[in-house]
């Protein structure tokens, strides 16, 4: 006899519940996304205490401003990522002692030894993204990571890497285009739901 499996509420439903002051929905949303958001904050800040503070602030902001979320501007997870990334980068800039993201990136485990296609089969989004990133040449991957995880602008990246600004821009654009193509194997809904 088949077990009836209740469909879990999607992120949009949960955000609407949170906007209606539903704490259960809020907890489900937290349980679902806090590992990803915390890992992102930890990657940016390099400090567990700071990352937990930012996670706490972010979810308080979610509780207070869920009603302002506009689904036309992107998926709920994208909104959560934007909130925590902004806060983490603000904190990173304010504490003046910037973590060298290049070192963090170089210490990061690479693509799990999986090809992008295998990662898709395994259903592991992170593995897919890591595999796609690992496919990029270092001169394209490094400036992308400096921008996204280090909060550096193109001018700062060019200065840090000692490369012409035009070269950095071209490599970042090419890198992101290739990343998009590399991730095309994963259904968009799975990546951004």
């Amino acid at each position, binding site marked *: 006899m088949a077990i009836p499996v209740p469909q879990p509420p999607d992120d949009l439903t949960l955000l609407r519940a949170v906007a209606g002051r539903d704490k259960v929905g809020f907890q489900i949303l937290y349980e679902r996304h806090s590992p990803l958001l915390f890992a992102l904050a930890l990657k940016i800040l390099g400090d567990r205490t700071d990352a*937990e503070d930012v996670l706490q602030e972010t979810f308080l902001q979610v509780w207070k401003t869920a009603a302002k979320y506009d689904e036309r501007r992107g998926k709920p997870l*994208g909104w959560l990522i934007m909130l925590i990334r902004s806060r983490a980068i603000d904190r990173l800039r304010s504490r003046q002692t910037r973590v060298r993201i290049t070192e963090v990136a170089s210490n990061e485990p690479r693509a799990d030894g999986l090809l992008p296609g295998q990662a898709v089969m395994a259903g592991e989004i992170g593995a897919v993204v890591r595999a796609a990133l690992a496919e990029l040449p270092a001169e394209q991957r490094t400036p992308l990571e400096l*921008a996204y995880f280090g909060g550096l602008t193109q001018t700062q990246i060019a200065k840090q890497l000692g490369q012409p600004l035009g070269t950095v821009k071209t490599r970042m654009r090419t890198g992101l285009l290739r990343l998009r193509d590399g991730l095309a194997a994963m259904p968009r809904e799975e990546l951004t739901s």
Partner: protein
Amino acid sequence: MTHENFRELLPLYVVGALDGDELRMFERHVAEHRAQCEAELAEWQAVADQLAHAPRLVEPGRAVFHRVMAEIEEEEAPRPKPMVTTTPPRERVSLTAVLFRWVPWAAAAVLVAMTAVMIKQTNTMRERFTAGQQATTTQQTQIADLEMLSATQAVAIVQQEATITNLAIRLTAQGKEFLEQSELWKARAEKQRQDTDSLQTANAQLVKEREQLLQAANELRRQLETQRVQVAALEKQAGEQTDAVTRGHAQIAALEARISEKTDALNLLMDPDLRVSQLANPDPKKQSPAVGRVYWHTGKKEGWIVVSNLEPVRKGSGKSLELWALCKGKPTAGTVFWTDDTGRGIFPIKLAGEPACLEAFAVTVEPTDAEPLPAPTGPIVLLGK
């Protein structure tokens, strides 16, 4: 800024790398063309946000969620009202002064005082009791509030438990599905491994067969080369044999022609209408051994001449022998012929015209190697009736 410029800067914008004038122009363009830009912006932002999945997942400490919930509860909870204590200050009484000033009245006073004190204490006790009752009531209210809060939390816990149960069921189902999927993939992998083994075996067999075929092909090539040499030799032999056969055919044809001539001659010789003339050199002084014979069929107007011991007159020598039929001394041209190296010859004969009579035949030597002459010019070497 054109929309093309917007598209070029879009990847840089979504990872937060744009700065300076480019960032300002970009944001102004988006603000002015929101409808046109919004979808592309969202799509590229979604691509950039995939980078957020790159770090390995990390569980935050459980205390973080409790802190979040505590802050939420604190903000939502009504401000507690400060408790008012209504216990009045106790009135102090100096018993020593009363005893020294009013000794006679001491006992009574003491009694009165004690009574008063007792009354006061009774009142105080009553007031304390009342205050205690009020405090109890307040605490009961607080307990009731706490019980309500506890009930609310119990409901929340029940809801959370239900949610957790649902999640557990879903996880169980997903786990089951995952296990089934894993088994399926394992089976497929095993099947692929078996297929690979089979293919490798088949491939090895094919390689072996290919080697054998190559050896067989080389052997056939060698045999073919040998046969080609043999065929060439046979073709050469066949050519030679064909030439021999051709020559044989020519010889046969020549022999058949000669047989035909001989047959004709034999038939002529056996014909009763045949006339035979003996020929010899007309000049006895020369004592020439040359002789000849003409076999002439009077009906068919044809015949044969046979000569021997003549001075050889070979074909191609610029000279020829010509037969003449004589009628009353008038010659009629006949056949031109030649001898072999021994002075022998045999030729069929015909006459160019039809003489009125046929008295004798003569043979002259003529200075020509072609058509017969109309009249004799050379010496007569044979003559006979």
